[in-house]
């Protein structure tokens, strides 16, 4: 019982501690690729620490939703973090929810941020909120379908079991549907974390911004919570990619050496994914909003193909 608590608490600490670092690393790699020096990789920590010390400036017209939304979305993402395997494949809370719960916890977080963006009544906020909802309506089905292909192979939607099973299969797990679903989920990860073909995370005043437009009204502590929530979500989406599709090296039992190794492997994996995302971001231009359905329907089609090829290969 006590060890179970320890696992959960350690997982929360890891997610909170690594999320800003991942953002920092992606920013640094991007700066390197663009021949800039760029801020240090610990800059997001300083930013959040500074924001937490500042007071919030809040519009007079907002309701309680504006104050509640950052906390609700932060908690929703953190709850998803209790179900997604990060450094150990049998999470104690895995009985509480599966991949569908994760998708909808992300949706809950997104819903409240979008609601808060409408609450302040600024024109930017409304624009950002409507765009975010537009994209999320395309992202959700593709995200579920792509993980379903793997879930079908293992026979459960429980993320911990999927991760453990794929890990124990070793290289046998690599198959057409695995590959197709991975490509599909990678596109989804770009959309879900607001990266460049979909949204530009580096902009604060541009007509095309989505996430930044939604949180434009926030400042001080609330902004820190929203930003940290977004970074956590990014880390969790990456660890979903890493631990569902190539979970090799993840610890399945509780032992100090195993967990240390699995943690190191995990950090290497998410840094590699982060570097690839930074390369994609540097080499592509942001897409027009109305071209995004094309990108996301490619992802939807690929996850659909993954399901089909699972049926073909396994002979349904």
């Amino acid at each position, binding site marked *: 019982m006590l060890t179970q608590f320890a696992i959960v608490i350690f997982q929360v600490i890891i997610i909170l501690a690594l999320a800003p670092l991942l953002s920092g690393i992606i920013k640094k790699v991007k700066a390197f690729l663009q021949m800039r020096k760029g801020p240090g990789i610990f800059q997001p920590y300083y930013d959040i620490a500074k924001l937490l010390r500042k007071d919030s400036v809040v519009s007079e017209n907002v309701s309680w939703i504006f104050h509640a939304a950052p906390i609700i979305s932060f908690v929703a993402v953190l709850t998803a973090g209790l179900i997604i395997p990060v450094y150990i494949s049998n999470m104690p809370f895995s009985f509480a929810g599966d991949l569908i719960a994760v998708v909808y916890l992300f949706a809950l977080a997104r819903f409240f941020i979008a609601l808060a963006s409408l609450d302040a009544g600024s024109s930017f906020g409304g624009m950002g909120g409507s765009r975010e909802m537009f994209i999320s309506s395309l992202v959700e089905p593709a995200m579920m379908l792509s993980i379903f292909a793997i879930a079908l192979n293992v026979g459960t939607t429980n993320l911990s079991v999927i991760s453990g099973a794929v890990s124990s299969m070793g290289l046998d797990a690599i*198959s057409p549907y695995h590959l*197709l679903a991975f490509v599909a989920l990678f596109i989804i990860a770009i959309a879900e974390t607001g990266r460049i073909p979909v949204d530009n995370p580096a902009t604060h005043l541009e007509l095309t911004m989505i996430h930044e437009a939604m949180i434009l009204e926030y400042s001080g502590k609330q902004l820190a919570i929203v930003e940290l929530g977004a970074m956590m979500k990014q880390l969790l989406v990456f660890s979903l990619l890493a631990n569902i599709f190539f979970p090799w090296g993840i610890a399945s039992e509780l032992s100090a050496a195993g967990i240390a190794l699995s943690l190191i492997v995990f950090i290497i994996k998410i840094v590699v994914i982060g570097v690839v995302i930074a390369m994609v971001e540097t080499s592509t231009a942001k897409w027009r909003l109305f*071209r995004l359905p*094309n990108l996301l329907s490619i992802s939807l*089609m690929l996850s659909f*193909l993954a399901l089909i*090829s699972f049926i073909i290969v*396994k002979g349904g």
Partner: protein
Amino acid sequence: MSELVFGSKMMQLLIALILVSTFMILGSTRLYSCVRAFGIQSFLLAGVAGIVAYSTGKSDIYIVAILTLVIKAAVIPYIFIYIIREIKVKREIALYVNISPSLIIGGVLVVISYYLVRSINIRTELSSFALSASISLVSIGLFIMISRKKAIMQMLGILLMENGLFLGAISLTYGMPLLVELGIFFDVLIGVLIMGILIFRINRTFESIDTDMLKTLIG
């Protein structure tokens, strides 16, 4: 035995990637990215041929693989890029069917080809996967030919169909005799050259390579 298992696994992965590249052609709105996706697909096809050659040990399939690499993955994309550059065509492709519906139709075509293959009752999982991928490539190529307006895309569609047939042939029967294979490569190359010249002529006569324009009378 384990080498054979590894080979069939690699082949399944390559075929999956070939399907991905087909959907890249279907999903992109730029001529250059379509051509690039076709080049990648041919490269992967050469990989499939290479694996077949390695696992069967037939040396003539190596030649086929190298020819695929040289002609389909290098020369033909180069001819495409040359044509696009020379006739200074607008780089966006014109469509009869929009991108998202095209992708959905592509998915439906894959399902249909899977059901076709399932009714044939084939022995191994690899060959049923390869055959259904091959049939879907042929049907998606046909779909590209009828749903895109530019003459270049029609050329790309027919080459996609040819790739599909090649995939089916090489993975099911381990290749046709080398002489037949050489003849096909020669045909494809000459076909591309002739189609290229045809596109130049269409462009000169109609000042566009939009096949919609071909319906109008020129006095």
